[in-house]
């Protein structure tokens, strides 16, 4: 389609000293976009000195469809099913972030029962996202198959719950402004309880298999270390941020929804290496199980949507709002500007995994190519969200 230079997969160029003398050879490698470790269509231009990375530039946009422009061309509600396609592993949390922004824009209140169901759905999303991320991540390291399949077995149980409540495994399109689309079917909460009760057994098994595994420790400890100052300055959020020990969890800071009613701890790392990021996810899953156990005990009855919320002819007053939640990958925010018409004037997604890629080069410099694969795996990107 374009007259860009045909992509060369390998190119050898001279390595120059500061004075300009040829000292050796550098190899420029184009890694991706179809490389299995990139979790989608993602490319890295890497310059290698022997086995070591001296420069790395992420290249993406292969899935770009200008989601934000499409959002401006449709009604507020029309974008809701489209948010599912951003981070297609976590459609429930995408829905929630968007609904939260619109609720702030239009001043809608969410009924109690809907808030509880939202928390349950969001924490289930976190469980399945983190479980499958850990599986993929170990797969990237060469543990072919087994841990990933164990993780996907658990993920499938959660997706069955999503299917039962929303009709779809992944493209849930379940939340509405001021509540939810429909109530949970009879017996659904008992099913959730069963899955949640069984989940710690999986976590124990997973940790026994992996957390003290010698190969995993050798490959991940002190790899991809990020300094604390850089992480904060580069707007890194989610498990990557907390792996360096910064205590910033939007569930605690903003207390959106009803998160102030639950007791949970925010796991914090120390070194900020790949191993810490892996442990963050495992520990966050344990905390999520705790939140779910508390939430399931006290789900009240009642309506599931704000009676003031209009499905048709929804026109918020002119103004703007930014709503954000702690998604499994980091801060997921939606920024909306309304001009009083049925369509948003500006519809902006703050994609966590896109912004977390800012420091990919900093993490990879000086490491081997094989480490780049697991460092990228530990960032947890989904290209549907990165490219939008």
């Amino acid at each position, binding site marked *: 389609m374009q007259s860009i230079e045909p992509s060369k997969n390998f190119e050898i160029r001279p390595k120059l000293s500061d004075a300009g003398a040829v000292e050796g050879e550098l190899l420029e490698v184009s890694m991706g976009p179809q490389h299995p470790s990139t979790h989608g269509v993602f490319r890295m231009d890497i310059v290698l000195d022997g086995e070591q990375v001296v420069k790395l530039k992420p290249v993406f946009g292969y899935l770009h469809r200008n989601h934000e422009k499409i959002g401006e061309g449709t009604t507020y509600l029309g974008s809701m099913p489209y948010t599912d396609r951003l981070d297609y592993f976590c459609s429930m949390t995408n829905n929630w972030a968007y609904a939260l922004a619109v609720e702030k824009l239009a001043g809608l209140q969410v009924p109690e029962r809907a808030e509880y169901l939202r928390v349950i759905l969001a924490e289930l999303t976190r469980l399945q996202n983190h479980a499958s991320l850990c599986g993929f991540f170990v797969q990237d390291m060469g543990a072919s198959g087994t841990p990933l399949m164990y993780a996907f077995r658990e993920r499938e149980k959660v997706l069955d719950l999503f299917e039962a409540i929303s009709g779809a495994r992944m493209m849930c399109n379940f939340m509405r402004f001021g509540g939810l689309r429909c109530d949970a079917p009879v017996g659904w909460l008992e099913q959730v309880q069963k899955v949640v009760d069984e989940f710690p057994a999986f976590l124990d098994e997973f940790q026994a298999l992996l957390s003290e595994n010698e190969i995993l420790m050798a490959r991940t400890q002190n790899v991809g270390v990020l300094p604390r100052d850089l992480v904060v300055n580069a707007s890194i959020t989610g498990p990557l941020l907390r792996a360096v020990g910064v205590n910033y969890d939007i569930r605690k800071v903003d207390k959106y929804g009803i998160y102030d009613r639950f007791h949970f701890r925010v796991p914090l790392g120390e070194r900020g290496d790949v191993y810490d990021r892996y442990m963050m996810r495992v520990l966050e899953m344990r905390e999520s199980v705790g939140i779910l156990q508390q939430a399931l005990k006290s789900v009240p009855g009642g309506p599931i949507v704000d009676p003031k919320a209009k499905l048709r002819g929804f026109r918020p007053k002119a103004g703007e*709002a930014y709503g954000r939640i702690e998604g499994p990958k980091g801060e997921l925010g939606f920024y909306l500007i309304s001009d009083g018409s049925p369509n948003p004037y500006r519809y902006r997604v703050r994609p966590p995994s896109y912004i977390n890629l800012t420091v990919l080069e900093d993490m990879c410099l000086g490491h081997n190519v094989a480490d780049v694969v697991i460092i990228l795996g530990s960032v947890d990107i989904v290209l549907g969200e990165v490219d939008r």
Partner: protein
Amino acid sequence: MLALESIKTQVEQAIPGAKLEIVKNDAPSAQHSLLVNNTSGLAVAKYLRDEPSWRFDYASNVTGVDWPELELTEKIKVKKVVDGVEKEVEEVKKTVRPGYLETVYHLYSMELKHGPLIIRLRTENRTDKVHLPSLTPVWRGAEFQEREIFDLYGIVFDGHPDLRRILMWDGFKDFPMRKDYAEPDDYEYEPTPHDEVLDKAKQHYPAGA
């Protein structure tokens, strides 16, 4: 909600030449913002990050917004002499708001856990004066987001370390998120029988593509 008034006066006292203006937001969210003049954008950003009482160390979200030229109509009542009798007549007064491009920064503090503080920067127009100071030297987190705004809106960020297109391909000519962007009818390079379609496609793909 942060006290915007006091931030405004503090910043204006600390930085000579800084002119701030509070932009009201009528939505129930009540997230008001501060409009900063372009020339002192970088200094204001540094001050907000380093001042111990604010410490906005985390630039969460950077957004580009396009505001094309807009004709505002306002009905005003004017006294006029019609047929020898003084009457009150309604007249339509038209004013033109010049177009501009805008970047919006949502700032939070990870250290003090407050926010958001919203600051805005506006270009002079939408055609030739589209330069804004890059805040990437202050917050590295703005790097990819400013690149995205450059890519989709065409705002040129002075002082950005690596200003290239990020989501669209390098040879792309237009800025797709602008309100007046015209989509080519046909993205296919293959010739189609429609001349207009071909002409339009040519504008998007340089010769020889």
